[in-house]
Protein backbone atom coordinates (compact mmCIF):
# COMPACT_ATOMS: atom_id res chain seq x y z
CA UNK A 1 0.00 0.00 0.00
CA UNK A 2 1.54 3.31 -1.02
CA UNK A 3 2.04 6.07 1.50
CA UNK A 4 -0.63 8.18 -0.19
CA UNK A 5 -3.19 5.39 0.01
CA UNK A 6 -2.40 4.94 3.68
CA UNK A 7 -3.10 8.60 4.35
CA UNK A 8 -6.37 8.35 2.43
CA UNK A 9 -7.49 5.25 4.33
CA UNK A 10 -6.59 6.84 7.67
CA UNK A 11 -8.52 10.03 6.85
CA UNK A 12 -11.57 8.31 5.38
CA UNK A 13 -11.87 5.70 8.15
CA UNK A 14 -11.34 8.55 10.61
CA UNK A 15 -14.36 10.32 9.14
CA UNK A 16 -16.48 7.18 9.58
CA UNK A 17 -15.29 6.83 13.17
CA UNK A 18 -16.24 10.45 13.90
CA UNK A 19 -19.73 9.77 12.51
CA UNK A 20 -20.00 6.77 14.82
CA UNK A 21 -18.81 8.74 17.85
CA UNK A 22 -21.37 11.52 17.23
CA UNK A 23 -24.22 9.09 16.65
CA UNK A 24 -23.10 6.78 19.47
CA UNK A 25 -22.89 9.67 21.96
CA UNK A 26 -26.42 10.77 21.06
CA UNK A 27 -27.70 7.22 21.42
CA UNK A 28 -26.05 6.24 24.69
CA UNK A 29 -25.55 9.57 26.48
CA UNK A 30 -28.56 11.56 25.31
CA UNK A 31 -31.01 8.70 24.85
CA UNK A 32 -31.73 9.71 21.26
CA UNK A 33 -31.32 6.18 19.86
CA UNK A 34 -33.77 4.75 17.32
CA UNK A 35 -37.10 3.31 18.58
CA UNK A 36 -36.26 -0.18 19.86
CA UNK A 37 -38.88 -1.08 22.47
CA UNK A 38 -38.68 -4.69 23.64
CA UNK A 39 -42.14 -5.75 24.84
CA UNK A 40 -44.35 -8.38 23.25
CA UNK A 41 -48.11 -8.89 22.88
CA UNK A 42 -50.33 -11.54 21.30
CA UNK A 43 -51.12 -10.03 17.89
CA UNK A 44 -54.50 -11.78 17.76
CA UNK A 45 -55.55 -10.52 21.21
CA UNK A 46 -54.61 -6.83 20.86
CA UNK A 47 -58.09 -5.52 21.67
CA UNK A 48 -58.24 -7.55 24.86
CA UNK A 49 -54.76 -6.62 26.11
CA UNK A 50 -54.17 -3.48 28.19
CA UNK A 51 -53.37 -0.71 27.36
CA UNK A 52 -54.63 -1.37 23.84
CA UNK A 53 -58.11 -2.33 25.02
CA UNK A 54 -58.92 1.40 24.96
CA UNK A 55 -56.48 3.31 22.77
CA UNK A 56 -56.39 7.08 23.28
CA UNK A 57 -54.49 10.11 24.52
CA UNK A 58 -53.54 10.04 28.19
CA UNK A 59 -52.60 13.36 29.86
CA UNK A 60 -49.61 12.74 32.16
CA UNK A 61 -49.50 16.36 33.39
CA UNK A 62 -47.14 19.31 32.65
CA UNK A 63 -47.64 19.03 28.89
CA UNK A 64 -46.63 15.35 28.66
CA UNK A 65 -48.92 12.84 27.00
CA UNK A 66 -48.98 9.16 26.15
CA UNK A 67 -50.77 8.23 22.92
CA UNK A 68 -51.77 4.57 23.03
CA UNK A 69 -52.43 3.68 19.40
CA UNK A 70 -53.22 0.53 17.42
CA UNK A 71 -52.38 0.22 13.73
CA UNK A 72 -54.37 -2.01 11.44
CA UNK A 73 -54.92 -2.47 7.71
CA UNK A 74 -55.59 0.82 6.73
CA UNK A 75 -56.31 2.91 9.91
CA UNK A 76 -54.65 4.42 12.92
CA UNK A 77 -56.78 4.24 16.09
CA UNK A 78 -57.30 6.80 17.59
CA UNK A 79 -57.14 9.23 14.70
CA UNK A 80 -57.12 13.04 14.52
CA UNK A 81 -55.56 13.63 17.92
CA UNK A 82 -55.11 17.13 19.31
CA UNK A 83 -52.29 18.27 21.61
CA UNK A 84 -51.19 21.71 22.84
CA UNK A 85 -48.03 23.38 21.49
CA UNK A 86 -44.83 22.13 23.13
CA UNK A 87 -46.49 18.82 24.12
CA UNK A 88 -44.12 15.85 24.54
CA UNK A 89 -46.00 12.84 23.24
CA UNK A 90 -44.91 9.25 23.81
CA UNK A 91 -46.42 6.98 21.16
CA UNK A 92 -47.15 3.44 22.39
CA UNK A 93 -48.15 1.35 19.41
CA UNK A 94 -48.74 -2.17 18.14
CA UNK A 95 -50.21 -3.73 15.00
CA UNK A 96 -53.39 -5.82 14.85
CA UNK A 97 -52.50 -7.54 11.57
CA UNK A 98 -49.50 -7.00 9.24
CA UNK A 99 -46.34 -4.89 9.42
CA UNK A 100 -46.94 -1.15 9.44
CA UNK A 101 -44.75 1.92 9.78
CA UNK A 102 -45.62 5.24 11.39
CA UNK A 103 -44.07 8.42 10.00
CA UNK A 104 -44.87 12.06 10.74
CA UNK A 105 -43.24 14.19 8.02
CA UNK A 106 -41.40 17.18 9.45
CA UNK A 107 -40.55 15.31 12.65
CA UNK A 108 -38.24 12.41 13.51
CA UNK A 109 -41.19 10.15 14.21
CA UNK A 110 -40.43 7.18 11.98
CA UNK A 111 -40.80 3.68 13.42
CA UNK A 112 -41.75 0.19 12.33
CA UNK A 113 -44.82 -1.21 14.12
CA UNK A 114 -44.88 -5.01 13.88
CA UNK A 115 -47.52 -7.54 15.00
CA UNK A 116 -46.61 -9.18 18.29
CA UNK A 117 -44.41 -6.30 19.40
CA UNK A 118 -45.06 -3.03 21.22
CA UNK A 119 -43.13 -0.08 19.82
CA UNK A 120 -42.50 3.25 21.56
CA UNK A 121 -41.22 6.59 20.22
CA UNK A 122 -41.31 10.06 21.74
CA UNK A 123 -41.59 13.42 19.99
CA UNK A 124 -42.02 17.01 21.19
CA UNK A 125 -44.31 19.10 18.98
CA UNK A 126 -42.99 22.66 19.28
CA UNK A 127 -44.51 24.04 16.08
CA UNK A 128 -48.31 24.42 15.85
CA UNK A 129 -50.04 22.97 12.79
CA UNK A 130 -51.86 19.93 11.42
CA UNK A 131 -49.20 17.19 11.17
CA UNK A 132 -49.80 14.41 8.64
CA UNK A 133 -49.32 10.91 10.08
CA UNK A 134 -48.83 8.20 7.42
CA UNK A 135 -48.13 4.48 7.29
CA UNK A 136 -44.84 4.13 5.38
CA UNK A 137 -44.61 0.32 5.26
CA UNK A 138 -46.65 -1.42 2.54
CA UNK A 139 -49.53 -3.16 4.28
CA UNK A 140 -52.01 -3.96 1.52
CA UNK A 141 -54.25 -2.57 -1.18
CA UNK A 142 -55.42 0.35 0.96
CA UNK A 143 -51.97 1.26 2.24
CA UNK A 144 -52.05 4.67 0.47
CA UNK A 145 -55.21 5.55 2.40
CA UNK A 146 -53.78 4.72 5.82
CA UNK A 147 -53.21 8.11 7.41
CA UNK A 148 -54.41 10.42 10.14
CA UNK A 149 -53.47 13.81 11.57
CA UNK A 150 -52.14 15.29 14.80
CA UNK A 151 -53.25 18.88 15.34
CA UNK A 152 -50.96 20.98 17.54
CA UNK A 153 -52.67 24.16 18.79
Amino acid at each position, binding site marked *: *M*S*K*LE*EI*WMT*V*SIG*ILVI*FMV*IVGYQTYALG*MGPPSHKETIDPQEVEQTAPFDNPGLIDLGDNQYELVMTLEAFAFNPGNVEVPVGAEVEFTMTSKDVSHGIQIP*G*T*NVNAMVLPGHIQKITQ*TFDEPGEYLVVCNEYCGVGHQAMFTTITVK
Partner: protein
Amino acid sequence: MYSNTKKSKYSMSGTIASVTIVALVIILMWAGVFAIYMARV
Protein backbone atom coordinates in the same frame (compact mmCIF):
# COMPACT_ATOMS: atom_id res chain seq x y z
CA MET B 1 4.39 -0.70 5.76
CA TYR B 2 5.24 1.73 2.93
CA SER B 3 5.81 -0.12 -0.33
CA ASN B 4 9.25 0.42 -1.80
CA THR B 5 8.09 1.05 -5.36
CA LYS B 6 10.15 3.89 -6.75
CA LYS B 7 8.46 7.32 -6.79
CA SER B 8 6.42 7.00 -10.03
CA LYS B 9 7.43 9.67 -12.52
CA TYR B 10 3.77 10.74 -12.93
CA SER B 11 2.26 13.22 -10.45
CA MET B 12 -0.53 11.96 -8.20
CA SER B 13 -2.17 15.34 -7.67
CA GLY B 14 -5.26 14.25 -9.56
CA THR B 15 -5.79 11.26 -7.28
CA ILE B 16 -5.36 13.43 -4.19
CA ALA B 17 -7.86 15.97 -5.52
CA SER B 18 -10.36 13.28 -6.50
CA VAL B 19 -10.35 11.42 -3.19
CA THR B 20 -10.67 14.77 -1.43
CA ILE B 21 -13.84 15.36 -3.44
CA VAL B 22 -15.07 11.92 -2.34
CA ALA B 23 -14.40 12.80 1.31
CA LEU B 24 -16.16 16.15 0.91
CA VAL B 25 -19.26 14.55 -0.64
CA ILE B 26 -19.43 12.04 2.23
CA ILE B 27 -19.06 14.78 4.87
CA LEU B 28 -21.48 17.21 3.21
CA MET B 29 -24.25 14.67 2.67
CA TRP B 30 -23.89 13.37 6.21
CA ALA B 31 -23.81 16.86 7.74
CA GLY B 32 -26.84 17.89 5.69
CA VAL B 33 -29.03 15.02 6.85
CA PHE B 34 -27.67 15.34 10.40
CA ALA B 35 -28.74 19.00 10.40
CA ILE B 36 -32.23 17.97 9.26
CA TYR B 37 -32.32 15.31 11.98
CA MET B 38 -31.31 17.84 14.65
CA ALA B 39 -33.89 20.36 13.41
CA ARG B 40 -36.66 17.80 13.82
CA VAL B 41 -35.76 16.42 17.25
